[in-house]
């Protein structure tokens, strides 16, 4: 299993230089001790590390060498006792206190210098907002694009403005040698300047709960802005609703909810649509649009049995104000899709614009009732052809459709 490949594939990241193939990414890339050097400070840190390593090794070899030598030289033998020698020598004590001290002062200085570089912002850094929550990453770019991997441009300095919705996390990119905790209730910052195109591991390094070890993603360094934009932009209009929902799910929900039936921090969502969920207060509720909507916006209101007693706070944060109505609609679509994919169009189906201008050539017009949601999305036909971000009003338009659709189904 390779971590990077599926993540990259999901976002159609195929054309970035230097992305490791599944085979090579199992192999360690970099020097013996370190991953690749992909940021401006990596070199200095590696140098300091190796310097300390060699100094330590020197000391260690001397100490252990002397120890082993003494072990044999002065081992206890019949008739040979210990020989008298001085039990005190101030000059010697001072010598072996002062020499290491001098070395330590240098190590401190070198470390502090490197630390300053890592904690002081670059000029003209691009500000990327990072939101960490259990157990997802969400990166918001200056142009409003959102992604679950960090996409940055080579040689362009970056300032990550990080916040956490729940507990402590830490943003750690080994290849950049950069790390900083993300503390709820305040902003923390991380600065970096990537020097090498490629994809690198990005992990949560501060224990944050059950899914801590799953809170891994990638940082992709693109060769230029256009390449980055190509990857991060996402137009809901170009995709069937459930695909949009899938993307939102991966950005916001996948840390706690699985789609393969395994129970993570929250219930699996692949088969819940239409079933009766037992709540912790003993009652049951049918999983429908209203229930899902309520669970997303007010997660503490009703808790599913086994996920905390009624009246306690849900582990799930509220997404009130974080997801638009349209986005909740996409998520509902996705949950329905997971239950029964047959009613939904293929992933690659391009939404058929009413006034076809050739871009929708590969699309098929979905015939299933759930595809009723699509016309609303497909209204901005012109927009689907180029990279313009969706307009807000269109997004909210989309929200109405799932609802009407739901009512139809219930009736």
């Amino acid at each position, binding site marked *: 299993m390779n971590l990077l490949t599926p993540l990259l594939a999901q976002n159609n990241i195929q054309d970035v230089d230097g992305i490791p193939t599944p085979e090579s990414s199992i192999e360690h890339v970099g020097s013996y001790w370190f991953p690749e050097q992909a940021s401006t400070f990596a070199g200095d840190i590696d140098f300091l590390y190796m310097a300390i390593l060699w100094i330590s090794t020197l000391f260690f070899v001397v100490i252990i060498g002397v120890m082993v030598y003494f072990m044999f030289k002065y081992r206890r033998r019949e008739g040979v006792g210990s020989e008298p020698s001085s039990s005190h020598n101030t000059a010697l004590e001072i010598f072996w206190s002062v020499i290491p001290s001098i070395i330590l002062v240098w190590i401190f200085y070198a470390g502090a210098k490197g630390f300053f570089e890592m904690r002081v912002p670059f000029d003209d850094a691009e500000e990327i907002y990072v939101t960490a929550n259990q157990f997802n990453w969400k990166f918001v770019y200056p142009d409003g694009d959102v992604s679950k991997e960090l996409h940055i441009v080579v040689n362009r300095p970056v300032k990550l403005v990080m*916040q956490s919705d729940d507990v402590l996390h830490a943003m750690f990119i080994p290849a950049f040698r950069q790390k900083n905790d993300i503390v709820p*209730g*305040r*902003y*923390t*910052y991380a600065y970096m300047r990537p020097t090498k195109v490629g994809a690198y591991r990005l992990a949560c390094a501060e224990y944050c709960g059950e899914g801590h070890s799953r809170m891994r993603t990638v940082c992709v360094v693109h060769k230029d802005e256009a390449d980055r934009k190509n990857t991060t932009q996402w137009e809901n209009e170009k995709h069937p609703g459930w695909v949009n929902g899938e993307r939102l799910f991966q950005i916001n929900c996948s840390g706690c909810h699985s789609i393969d039936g395994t129970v993570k921090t929250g219930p699996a969502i692949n088969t819940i649509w239409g079933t009766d969920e037992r709540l912790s207060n003993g009652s049951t509720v049918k999983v429908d649009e209203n229930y899902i909507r309520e669970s997303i916006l007010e997660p*503490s209101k009703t808790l599913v049995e086994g996920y905390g007693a*009624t*009246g*306690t*706070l849900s582990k799930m944060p509220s997404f009130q104000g974080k997801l638009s109505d349209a986005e909740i609609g996409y998520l509902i679509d996705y949950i329905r899709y997971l239950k029964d994919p047959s009613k939904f169009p293929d992933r690659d189906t391009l939404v058929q614009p009413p006034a076809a201008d050739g871009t929708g050539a590969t699309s098929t017009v979905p015939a299933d009732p759930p595809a009723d949601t699509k016309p609303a999305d497909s209204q901005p036909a012109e927009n689907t052809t180029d990279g313009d971000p969706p307009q807000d009003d269109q997004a909210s338009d989309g929200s109405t459709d799932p609802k009407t659709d739901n009512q139809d189904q219930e009736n």
Partner: protein
Amino acid sequence: MSHDHDGGFAHPAPPKLLITVFIALVLLTILTLAMSSIDLGLMGAFGFWIAMSIASFKAALVLLFFMHMYWDKPFNVLVFLSSSLFVILFIGLTLMDSSHYKNSVDEYPRQPDPPALSP
């Protein structure tokens, strides 16, 4: 086992001294209270330090006479006073740190309180 010495280690404090100390403590308490009631035009921080000085003076009186530190072994005095050193260290370094990152807390938009929990 012999115990022929008769408890040379007791140092009974003279009652007059104790009462004097008590009166001084009461007067100092009244002084602190008065200071807070009458606004002498002292700035908050300054008044705070005066109040703390008075409290420390009171504490010194209690320590010296009520707690017999005046007659006690120097080592015991050292032991007790060392605690204040560590308290100052604790407060000092922690405060130094949080006052430095205060900005990043203040910038952060305050979230509303979570819904009240049912008891």
